[in-house]
């Protein structure tokens, strides 16, 4: 890793340096075409740098981040699996990249076919009847699904239903989504086995319940054993079941949400179907639902009529658009390619190997770490880090020290119901040697905590920066670059 080159692109700016992208404008000057009062008085202070500087700056920056291509990245609930290179190449084909969303449907039949067939594949994988690809990410998929449920209840004179039940192990987006959808989020306890506490569910379930939002497999890496009973309870109470599909990687081809009672769910294409996470996005969060909810899905729907693909806006019960145009199409293309590569057998093998890798890694560390729920796990497992305190360290210390061993840490301090939590998801992509090396690093850190606690407390030691003062960042927010000497220009033109 490069440690010396820490300047911002703005600090590399020098007056008069430039690239040669575009010609000198040769038409009428702007002042002739736009009234002067609308023209800006000072140009935005973008950097003035030559092409090589741009390339070197951003290549060097890239080298300061861990990635799947360079490091094992067992971030729980994020499914950091291998992102096939061919899918990047395909999404960049001009026939997919250089098409305009206002082009008539007749001129983009290939794109619409990809979307239409992908909808069908996702419906089959989830056991659902209809799919929309429009939501831009998982959180937007959640909002779409809950708004669909809301519209369904409203039409049936059930508009008084005002609460959504959410297990306490849920991701924070679930309760936030409910608030946005105008619902009250009601938390349901987990039981000692990590499943939903049925007594507590019974207590919270009422004629005010609009839906349950459940993640299955859960964020604890466990399949909800009582899922059939739970769905039945909800339906008997006149409520719907929403499933957060973040953890579909463990069950694709094994079991289907539509078959165990779920009414509507979202996928995270960037998890189960390997569309790249890109440093935090773009994601893609298609929503699948049963037939009774289909009329409420966002418009437009991608449909096939006779032998042609079309966009259908004529859906009077639709909740409307959740996003401009048709979703993150570039991600749909990658997902389509991924599913076509794997076929039914490949997808099932992914689930089996993701679960095998997780159970293997769990067994490798179980002797030295406290596994929160010690039964066979799905694609991930969680460690209770509380006992680390006896060694004088915390989960955060273990995470930071792992960086020195070249491993990205697991998800930490989530789910909230496990103290000092570490949530580990190796995915099917990793080989046995990597899992062994990771387990050994984890155990070595415990030894270090005894022999040389400072080494662990002050980790990481090999990164471009040491432990950062996050408190200072929040107390005195500096969220943009300002040149020294106040609000002066970054660099001056003669």
């Amino acid at each position, binding site marked *: 890793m490069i440690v010396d080159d820490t300047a911002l692109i703005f600090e590399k700016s020098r007056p008069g340096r430039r690239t040669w992208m575009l010609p000198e404008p040769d*038409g009428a000057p702007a002042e002739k075409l736009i009234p002067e009062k609308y023209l*800006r008085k000072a140009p935005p*202070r973008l950097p003035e*740098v030559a092409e090589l500087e741009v390339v070197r700056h951003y290549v060097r920056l890239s080298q300061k981040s861990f990635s799947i*291509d360079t490091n094992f990245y067992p971030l729980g609930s994020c499914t950091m699996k291998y992102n096939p290179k061919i899918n990047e190449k395909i999404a960049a084909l001009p026939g997919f990249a250089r098409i305009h969303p206002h082009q008539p449907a007749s001129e983009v039949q290939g794109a619409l076919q990809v979307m239409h067939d992908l909808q069908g594949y996702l419906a089959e994988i989830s056991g659902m009847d209809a799919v929309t690809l429009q939501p831009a990410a998982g959180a937007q998929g959640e909002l779409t699904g809950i708004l669909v449920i809301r519209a369904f209840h409203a039409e049936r004179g059930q508009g008084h239903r005002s609460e959504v039940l959410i297990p306490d192990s849920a991701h*924070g987006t679930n309760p936030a989504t409910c608030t946005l959808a105008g619902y009250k989020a009601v938390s349901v306890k987990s039981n000692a086995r990590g499943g939903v506490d049925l007594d507590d569910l019974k207590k919270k379930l009422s004629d005010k319940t609009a839906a349950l939002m459940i993640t299955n497999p859960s964020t604890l890496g466990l*399949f909800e054993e009582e899922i059939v009973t739970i769905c039945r309870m909800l339906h008997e109470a006149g409520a719907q079941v929403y499933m957060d599909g973040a953890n579909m990687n463990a069950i694709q081809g094994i079991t289907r949400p539509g078959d165990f009672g779920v009414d509507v769910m979202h996928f995270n294409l960037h998890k189960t179907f390997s569309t790249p996470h890109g440093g935090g996005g773009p994601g893609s969060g298609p929503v699948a639902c049963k037939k009774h909810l289909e009329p409420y899905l966002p418009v437009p729907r991608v449909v096939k009529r006779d032998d042609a693909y079309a966009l259908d806006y004529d859906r009077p019960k639709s909740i409307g658009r959740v996003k401009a145009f048709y979703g993150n199409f570039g991600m749909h293309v990658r997902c389509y390619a991924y599913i076509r590569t794997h076929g039914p057998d490949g997808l099932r093998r992914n689930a089996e190997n993701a679960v095998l890798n997780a159970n293997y890694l769990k067994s490798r560390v179980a002797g030295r770490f406290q596994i929160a729920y010690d039964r066979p796990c799905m694609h991930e497992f969680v460690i209770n880090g509380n006992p680390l305190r006896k060694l004088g360290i915390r989960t955060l210390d273990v995470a930071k020290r792992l960086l020195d061993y070249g491993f990205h840490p697991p998800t930490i301090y989530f789910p909230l119901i496990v103290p000092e939590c570490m949530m580990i998801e190796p995915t099917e992509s990793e080989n046995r040697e990597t899992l062994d090396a990771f387990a050994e690093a984890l155990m070595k850190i415990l030894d270090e905590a005894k022999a040389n606690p400072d080494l662990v407390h002050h980790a990481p030691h090999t990164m471009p920066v040491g432990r950062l003062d996050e408190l200072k960042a929040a107390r005195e927010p500096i969220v*943009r670059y300002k040149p020294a000497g106040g609000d002066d220009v970054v660099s001056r033109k003669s």
Partner: protein
Amino acid sequence: MDYIQNSPDDAAAMLKAVGAASVEDFFTSIPKEIRLNRPLNLPPGMTEQELLAHMEELAARNRTTESCTSFLGGGAYSHFIPSLVEQVAGRGEWVTSYTPYQAEASQGTLQSIFEYQTMICELTGLDVANASHYDGSTALAEAVAMALDHSDRNRILVSAAVNPQYREVLRTIFRQLGVEFVELATFEGATATSGLAEFAATAAAVVVQSPNFFGVVEDLAEISRAAKAGGARTIASVNPVSLGLLEPPGACGFDVAVGDAQPFGIETSYGGPWCGFIAARMELIRKMPGRLVGQTVDDKGRRGFCLTLQAREQHIRREKASSNICTNQALMALRATITMSTLGREGLRRMATLSLQRAHELHDAVTSVPGVSRPHQAPFFHEFVIQTPVDPDLLNERLLARGILGGVDLHQSYPDLRNGVLLCATERTSKADIERFRAGLAECLKDPR
């Protein structure tokens, strides 16, 4: 096919180490009656070679903005993309990393976002920008949520000249929360400002777009004065390229600016993934949705970057959060950042000025064709509306036969603009393209049926 590394021998050894007879042992928590007892009904797997051939065939069924002469805009813009963007932003280190929660191992991602935030602030003339959002439409919805969060009023005034799809998204997101959207009429293509101050006195926010959906440059300073007089927040949706020339919303007194950075190095890609941006005055920083990168120091006093003010976000606030967003569009924001760095000050001026000039040359050429009229006379940036005697669908069909992707059909959203078409030009539009369009249009309009 699959990308699994472990061989059957590896799997056997791993099962043995765990003490399991087969992977079936791990799935016992899934009740038998809900197991899928058949293979998924999907097409069989493909090798990479087969896949590429299949996908190339599908791609070939799409006409592209390269294979045609395109005058399409309306929220998606074909600008020149410097060659280095694909190669630098396409590096695996960028593409396959994730949210920079572990700051020490994510300084590249964090610094690039900090630079992006700075550039968005520079463009919009505002103090703070978030780490990016899904797209322009959802960024606008978040801005409205910020304004509502700040106010006892639940009415939002939205100009009729805001992108119709953006307005649809607002309705979807806020309908169930009892928010009332009131449309502001336009005059000559610009948002009417007479009486706005009184109207604004009942509203949480005034939302306009500039250049607006008709391409018209709005009088942001005047709108801001009127809205402020009524005590409403001001939100502008802006095209970032135009900000190379136009007075930014911040300088016009606006509180929040949103938009889509798609014109900067991001392919139109049939509508996504793109890069929404949100910028605001400093006083609104704790109302900002989504991720925010801040500067700090490490334990040796060296400069570093980390996610900050996370107490605003859903993973901390849960049901009390005013946004549920988790991801941003980091890779798209990176493309925009690299493109803005490559353009630099001079390049941005050129991109904006060339787009402005080509659009005005296109305007002069098109309005010389008999039958073409203009509904608006207000100043415009790189888009403008024409009306012709021919139905836009038919017109576009005829133009396509000549290899031309005509303008956006306004019939659905603006039925009053009879046979209205929105045309766009950028620096990629050549003088030859303009002449080709003029000649083609003249032919297509000869027969009005």
